[in-house]
């Protein structure tokens, strides 16, 4: 990311991804944070608890007995009109499952950080995207971040998106477990005042605690009720969210100088081959693209940022002129045609009438490292296809032992 000229005066601090997000939460200063305080929780919550203990935030900090209870408490809190945040990871997110769907259907604008880590077994606590990919159909806005700075920025953009009257959906921010969550990198933060001004006042939707205007959340709505129409409205909110999110990204750029799009394109203007990738692996993909460009190979990279709602038309437009695209999944969807990102991107292409050749690369499961030479290997597969060859129809595994 190009550092903004107007903002270069801001000091750079050395922090972990989790410290960056906890700091954003402190600056947002929500009304309630309800979270499970034990593994697989990350130290986002521990760091935030220190702010609570130091008395520098006003949040009612609720430590609950399970992640299921954490999301339940968040739903109750958000439905009462309180600005509510939480954080989770891995199996903790899986345990929230039932309530994750309910949060979305009750249109509770909760902002949650989910640090991407594997689901067991075998038992593994390291990075992959299995946890949040499993939650992609739950009705939450999902935004993937590459590094600590992006995760910090996305946290601050959370409420303006989630609480927007055209959206009113919970929002999940993700970044790679350990690789970003535990690594120390640069952070250029905003001031508390800037954050407060950007996030603004809560919209004051009808709440359970408004005794003059009675409302009901989440009641029984059986066979002859409006369940179906509620679901249609959730999808309409997702449709609306695309424009709202970009608008919030743009407003944030005006404040910080850091500019975001739903998909972040790198050297895609005239690309013959392209990699689509999520999170911390994007940097290695860009450096390999640079290397190939120096050899005269027209390589580009698309980094996924907004994943739900999925900006299908934008992917089709970006990939229309590309001869072969490799879609990299750090999770699998067992038994499906490919990994979750592969299915979304190829569906988007087909829907828009773009028939770019596409291959699926699975990498990084359970924290397996992904080196530049692994990504180069993927690009070489695409290069052959761009020159007229066929692409593999089944998954290609990168950096697999014994391959």
């Amino acid at each position: 990311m190009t550092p903004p000229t107007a903002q270069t005066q801001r000091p750079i601090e050395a922090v972990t991804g989790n410290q960056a997000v906890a700091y954003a939460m402190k600056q947002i200063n929500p009304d309630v944070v309800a979270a499970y305080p034990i593994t697989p929780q990350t130290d986002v919550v521990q760091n935030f608890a220190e702010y609570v203990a130091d008395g520098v935030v006003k949040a009612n900090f609720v430590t609950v007995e399970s992640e299921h209870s954490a999301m339940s408490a968040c739903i109750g809190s958000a439905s009462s009109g309180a600005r509510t945040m939480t954080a989770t990871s891995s199996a903790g997110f899986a345990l929230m499952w039932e309530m994750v769907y309910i949060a979305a259907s009750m249109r509770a604008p909760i902002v949650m950080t989910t640090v991407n880590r594997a689901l067991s077994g075998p038992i593994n606590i390291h990075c992959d995207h299995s946890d949040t990919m499993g939650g992609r159909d739950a009705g939450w806005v999902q935004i993937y971040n590459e590094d600590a700075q992006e995760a910090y920025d996305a946290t601050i953009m959370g409420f303006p998106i989630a609480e927007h009257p055209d959206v009113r959906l919970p929002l999940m921010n993700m970044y790679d477990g350990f690789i970003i969550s535990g690594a120390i990198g640069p952070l250029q933060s905003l001031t508390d005042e800037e954050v407060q001004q950007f996030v603004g006042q809560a919209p004051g939707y009808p709440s359970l605690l408004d005794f003059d205007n009675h409302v009901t959340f989440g009641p029984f709505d059986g066979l002859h009720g409006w369940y179906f129409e509620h679901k249609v409205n959730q999808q309409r909110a997702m449709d609306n969210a695309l424009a709202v999110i970009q608008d919030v990204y743009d407003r944030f750029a005006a404040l910080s100088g850091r500019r975001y799009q739903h998909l972040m394109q790198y050297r895609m203007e005239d690309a013959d081959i392209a990699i689509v990738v999520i999170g911390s692996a994007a940097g290695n993909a860009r450096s390999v693209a640079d290397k190939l460009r120096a050899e005269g190979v027209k390589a580009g990279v698309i980094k996924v940022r907004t994943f739900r709602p999925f900006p299908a038309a934008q992917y089709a437009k970006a990939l229309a002129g590309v001869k072969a695209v490799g879609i990299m999944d750090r999770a699998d969807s067992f038994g499906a045609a490919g990994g979750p990102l592969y299915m979304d991107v190829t569906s988007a292409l087909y829907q828009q009438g773009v028939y770019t050749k596409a291959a699926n690369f699975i990498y990084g499961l359970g924290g397996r490292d992904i080196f530049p030479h692994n990504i180069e290997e993927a690009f070489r597969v695409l290069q052959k296809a761009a020159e007229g060859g066929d692409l593999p129809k089944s998954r290609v595994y990168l950096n697999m032992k014994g391959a």
Partner: protein
Amino acid sequence: MSSRLTEIRWHGRGGQGAVTAAKMVAEIAAERGKCFQAFPEYGPERSGAPIVAFTRLSEDPIQCYSAIEHPDLVLVLDDTLLSVVDVTEGASDDAVIIVNTEKSPDDIKKGFDFGSRRVLTVPATKIAKQTLGRAIPNTPMVSALSRITGYFSLEEIEDHLRHTFGKKFPQKVVDANVEAAKMAFQEVRE
């Protein structure tokens, strides 16, 4: 590897402060307007068990997050690790290795094959015990690193210790760390 990028690998034992040392280098880099990244090799952390941490320093923004395969510099915080792990693994022939030991570089080289790599020693634990009263060798190691690479001056390390470090620790501890840095800067041997 870009000539503007330095990749450092730290070998230590759980509790010796290898991760803290990697973090200290990152913080000094941040204060000096350089680009940086620091991360441990994640796994179960047990006191005394061998651990590895990494630091990248660069003039340009760092966008690579994979492990360091070919370090330019290897810092060994405990000489008993030399018989346990291969600290030269992946290190290029012109890599520099700095070992915390009271032994001379020649003695260290007798017990372990470093190939053609430059090997330097610094008695960081001894210095830490003398100055801090505790066997935490990270400040002296950071100082030795700076002496060898010229990446930071002794004044810049002192500035970091007095300001950033000084926010968290009492003056006595800060002074002891400054003293440790100064001694280590002088006592690097080749």
